[in-house]
């Protein structure tokens, strides 16, 4: 049975430029202990999807429909009071910018301790001992001294390790990581990814990893969901997705990544045009205006997502690798 089941959610926002359809009919599931990645460019709807799981979308300005089942229960529409018990407990989240996620006027120890008291009911001295242990687990030097420190005294990489310690404090069964290393230097990113992978295996938690970086995805995820313009366009096991992408957008993205090959100046594959902002359901395929394979049908009939093999699906009238 899956741990998380997102069933056909759609999210829209009211903005000054009119209604924006950020996510349309997204379904995905995460099994216990599994790492699932959601990859997409800006405006793909990947972060909105992640935020919607924990009810973190701005109330009053956003509308959401569909179902989000966690351990079988539909948590979409749960009151704030109930969601708060879930957040930081069974479902934890790590964001891109650790500086804005941490409270600047509270010590590191206090911020970890808060989770331990609220979600695990630990007493003050137990919480302190456990906080030190968690800081050790995430590889921070001098954990005893670190719990007295404040966020501004730490480097970006250290802050992200603290965020991970806070996430672990509630013993989550699902960790949602939204661009967890995007703001970090590349050597620090590598160390944080190594840490996340080790912790995921050690604690057996499932992870939903949101990223724009296909390199990070290849390293971390067992299964990948590709989003474009608010829709899931492809889903497949990671090795299969990278070896034989079915959707022209996925193939384009893979060709567009600058790679560390010393063979320089082989021109990168371009996807012409730019990522769309969707105000109304498109007449045809959302990717058709940028797609070299698009024909009349693509411009008039939206392709629906269809499974082609177990765990392998695509939303395209003319997927690659066929005739």
């Amino acid at each position, binding site marked *: 049975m899956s741990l998380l089941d997102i069933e056909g959610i759609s999210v829209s926002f009211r903005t000054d430029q009119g209604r924006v359809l950020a996510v349309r009919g997204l379904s995905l599931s995460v099994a216990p202990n599994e790492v699932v990645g959601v990859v997409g460019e800006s405006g793909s709807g990947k972060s909105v999807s992640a935020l919607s799981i924990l009810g973190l979308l701005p109330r009053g300005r956003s509308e959401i429909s569909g179902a989000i089942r966690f351990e079988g229960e539909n948590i979409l529409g749960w009151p704030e009071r109930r969601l708060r018990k879930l957040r930081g407990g069974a479902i934890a989240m790590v964001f891109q910018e650790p500086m804005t996620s941490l409270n600047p006027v509270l010590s590191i120890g206090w911020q970890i301790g808060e989770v331990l008291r609220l979600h695990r009911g630990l007493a003050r001295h137990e919480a302190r001992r456990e906080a030190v242990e968690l800081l050790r687990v995430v590889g921070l030097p001098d954990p005893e001294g670190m719990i007295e420190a404040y966020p501004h005294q730490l480097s970006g990489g250290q802050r992200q390790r603290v965020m991970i310690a806070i996430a672990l404090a509630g013993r989550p069964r699902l960790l949602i990581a939204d661009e967890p290393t995007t703001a970090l230097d590349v050597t620090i990113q590598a160390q944080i990814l190594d840490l996340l992978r080790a912790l995921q295996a050690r604690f057996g938690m499932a992870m939903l990893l949101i990223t724009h970086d296909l390199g990070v995805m290849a*390293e971390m995820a067992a299964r990948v969901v590709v989003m474009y313009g608010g829709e899931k366009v492809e889903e497949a096991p990671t090795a299969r997705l990278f070896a034989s992408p079915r959707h022209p957008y996925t193939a384009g993205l893979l060709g567009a990544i600058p790679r560390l090959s010393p063979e*320089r100046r082989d021109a990168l594959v371009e996807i012409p045009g730019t990522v769309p902002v969707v105000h109304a359901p498109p007449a045809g395929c959302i990717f058709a205006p940028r797609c070299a394979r698009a024909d009349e049908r693509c411009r008039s009939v939206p392709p629906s997502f269809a499974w082609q093999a177990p765990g392998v699906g695509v939303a395209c009238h003319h997927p690659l690798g066929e005739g």
Partner: protein
Amino acid sequence: MAERAMTDKAVRGASAPLLEVEALTKIFVTGRLWGGSARRVRAVEGVSFTLSRGETLAVVGESGSGKSTLGRMVLGLIRPTSGEVRLEGARIDHLPPRLFHPLRQRLQIVFQDPAGSFNPRLRLREALAEPLRNFRLARGVELEERLAELVAQVGLSAALLDRYPHELSGGQRQRLAIARALAPRPDLIVLDEAVSALDVSVKAQIINLLVALQARLGLSYLFISHDMAVVTHIADRVAVMYLGRLVETGPTRAVFTAPRHPYTKSLLDAVPVPDPAHPRPPLALREAGAPPERGCRFASRCPWVIPLCRETEPPWQGSAANGVACHRPLA
């Protein structure tokens, strides 16, 4: 216009490299404001390199490496504490603003954030015409023709000139930032993380555009970046900086296939590989702490550190165009 620029370039000293930077140093002094003791931040220290016509030198490093400060010193936006910047053999680092102004025509910059580098209240036609008027390069019909030529060069339609910056996508804005840099027909463009904020599909477009423009116009690029993979697609040579120091430089292919400095190797090993069949091995690098007061600045993170590294700053070995600063080079 084009022919005149060509002959100008032929006449100007062909012997000296376009740009020479020698022992360039910038020390920022902070903390004196509140009466405490002043703290000296060695943002850039003793950096030397040359850049020829039509060549791309990538300056790579992470945050705090000093790469952006270096770029700004080349452009005369920050005054160096010591050292020299020479353009075709003539020193330009201590010129008063009045004498530096004509050089700005030849030295242009494109920043990371195209949204922040345009005046939101100016139509793009005005933003693009500004450098042409400032340097009295074109007016009237000629100005209009030049604007049309510039937008065409960066692959945009002239209709965009009547729009405001916020009406454009990030990729379109960056194309216009490049067009604006091209307007005064510069010799050198400093590209400061110019593709870093762009989405993957748009990034590829801009990289290809920069490479094509260079081939057509004979531009030199100083390409400042933290992204090693992007660098392989654009740079002839690479200079690696760590905490203000140049640690390694050489031809891109040589440096990337056989890095000599442990930091260069770490940077390359850290790049996530977009291929699940070839996973990246865990990084053999230690946690970044405070940089040491003496010796090699990388010693506190280096997996191959020996006692000498903590005592003595490693001297530069090799030439200005191809060398390394390490007591125990890897290759």
